[in-house]
């Protein structure tokens, strides 16, 4: 079976662990528990009639207390940049992390998601900023780990991209 290492990257408390849990076990917890280090989860998805095992490396959130350990990134096939729509600063963190990944492992496939669409009325990340990301080639998803919105599409899109990195699916863009 094809195995792919995918890193979940983003600022702290953007919902990386929640997205993984929602994707793997379809569970969501309101209680915030910070991740220290890394937790690896697995889930098999079907892409083009092939089973692909996604090894989801849920890394700790990037902030002033913890910076990304480049060794975690090595061997990654792709990554997911997670942002919190209600905190504009998480977009800047995502940009920095994306640059770190490119510097460490090169331009591997990735998707991004602006999480917490259930709180869209409180969003600070506005449409011009989103448009700017898309202009830079970022596949941007909107979703909510809490409501389960956009989660399957996010991981499915990246899995598809991993198998055919030269032509990302139109739906991802």
């Amino acid at each position, binding site marked *: 079976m094809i195995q792919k290492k995918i890193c979940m990257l983003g600022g702290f408390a953007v919902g990386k662990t929640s997205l993984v849990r929602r994707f793997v076990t379809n569970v969501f917890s309101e209680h915030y528990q*910070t991740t220290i280090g*890394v*937790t*690896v989860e697995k889930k098999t998805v079907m892409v083009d009639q092939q089973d692909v095992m996604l090894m989801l490396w849920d890394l700790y*959130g990037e902030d002033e207390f913890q910076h990304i350990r480049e*060794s*975690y990134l090595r061997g990654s096939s792709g990554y997911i940049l997670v942002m919190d729509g209600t905190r504009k600063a998480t977009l800047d963190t995502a940009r920095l992390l994306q640059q770190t990944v490119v510097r460490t492992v090169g331009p591997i496939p990735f998707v991004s998601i602006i999480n917490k669409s259930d709180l869209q009325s409180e969003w600070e990340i506005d449409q011009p900023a989103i448009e700017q990301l898309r202009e830079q080639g970022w596949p941007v998803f909107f979703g909510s780990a809490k409501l389960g919105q956009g989660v399957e599409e996010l991981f499915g899109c990246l899995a598809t991209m991993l198998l055919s990195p030269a032509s990302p699916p139109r739906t991802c863009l």
Partner: protein
Amino acid sequence: MTDQSHRPDTSLSDCVLAALDIVVLEWEEGLREFRLQGVPPEWWSQCVGSTIRNSLDLSQCSPFLQDYLGGIHSVWQGSPGPIEKSGAWTEPDRQGGTMTLEARPLFLGPRKLVLIERLGSDFEHMRSIVQRARERMLAEDITAKSHRNTETRLIGQLEASERTKDDALALLQQLGLAAIVLDERGQITFATDRTLEMLGCAMQEILGRPWDQVLSFRKEDRLLIQHLLEGSSKIHSSGPLCFEGASSKWIELGIHRDLAHTGRRILIFNDRTEVHALRQALNEQASFHDLIGKSPAMLRVYQLVRDVAQVDTTVLIEGETGTGKELIARAIHSSSARKHKPFIAANCAGLTDSILTSQLFGHKRGAFTGAIQDQQGLFEAAEGGTLFLDEIGDIPPQVQTALLRVLQEKEITRLGEAKPRTVNVRVVAATHHNLSEDVLRGSFRADLLYRIRIARVQLPPLRDRREDIPLLAQSMLGQVCAATGKTVERLHPDTLRLLMSHSWPGNVRELKSAVEFAVISCKGNEICPMDLPPEIAGATVVPSPSVFIPLSGQDEKTRLLAALSEAKGNRTEAAKRLGISRATFYRRLGEFDLASDQ
């Protein structure tokens, strides 16, 4: 002994490793596998299961450990540098919980080892610190966002409020409304441009100052406003009040409570100066001093009085009895520069020359029988003012001479005295006579006539200004009601028609007498024809143009002759047509020496 003491004590190293709670894996280059060294801690078997002959099956390891151990050869083969730890990772345990592990490579000479330890209480402590720090950052973020939202909302509200204020202000200024706002202490906190224009000052000059220092009202008006300001009702209005600013204005003042701030008051000034002036002009047109009437004839009289009042000459007022000659004299006096000095009225009719001389010029004690003390005359009493001599055509010839001297020399001599006294008196004379005819008859001195007739005012009889009758009657009705305490509100239209058709030989005096009679007789609140005196109530209203068309320019004699002619010599019918009694008609004929001719 020495060799034995340096021989490795495997049981000791096992105990040490067990005490350190560390797993030691050694890379066996020949077998190309990791082998477990010593006795592993109990948790290790939860990670990888049982280990056969201490050989590690990587496929049984967690993905993270596989990844780490798979990639560690590159660390060992690399150039010397810092030994890289794996970083913490989480593994599920068999109780359904998790444990956090960390691995590090180790060189011991040629031996390549990997140490794996379970992170314990120190790690959990560090985790809780990071957890708390991040929760605090999130809370602060939420608080900051809340503050930003509040700030944005407040700024929005402030801007909206400013816009509303600007709109209201623009509207207020556009309306040209003069208004000020007072705070609880009565100090001005706002004034519109119109107010500033009215006051003739700038905003900063009045802001914060008490209203009564800025608004120049008369004392009684200030007290009234203060009283109204202290009142509790929502709206008060008062006025017109005289505002004594750069130019005096008449204003109506509205005082409103500011519903948003109980202690504050909004004062709105409505400039009524123009209305006041127009109203005054209207009143003046309808009445002049105590004279009432707005007929063209009376308006000409008012203007004449104004003109005459501007000069200090002697005036002769001519008019039938009851037309209000004394009122004209008073009006001349009140409009003249002598208005603050005495006005003395004397009726010269029916007095003997000695009594009249004494009255006018005074006398010395003992000048005649009964003259028990010195007495000043009316000329002296009117010093500086006006002396009104009514019925001057009736004064005896001797007094005419003395009067002429006074008018010429401005001196009087008291009866019984020889020394003249200088007087400064304006003489206004009146008569119902035709003095020119009296001069011709020799009963009045021509030189005196010319002296007193420098200015003349001719008062029209009431029949020549019938349009004033309703106004006069209504005014008299009010006066009589006030005097008698009766409440008669109006005149019935038929009553008014009768009054309009009467000839009023007694003029205004007769009209007033008729109204008094009617008020006394009236039983309701409206005067009916039957309430009028019989000679008026009984008259037949004959709308004959020959009688009732105004006869301006004609004298009474002509009218009598015309009435007789139309009645074909029937005196009773002629009297009826003129609206006077037969007796009055006969008396009038006698006065004009027409009784025998007709």
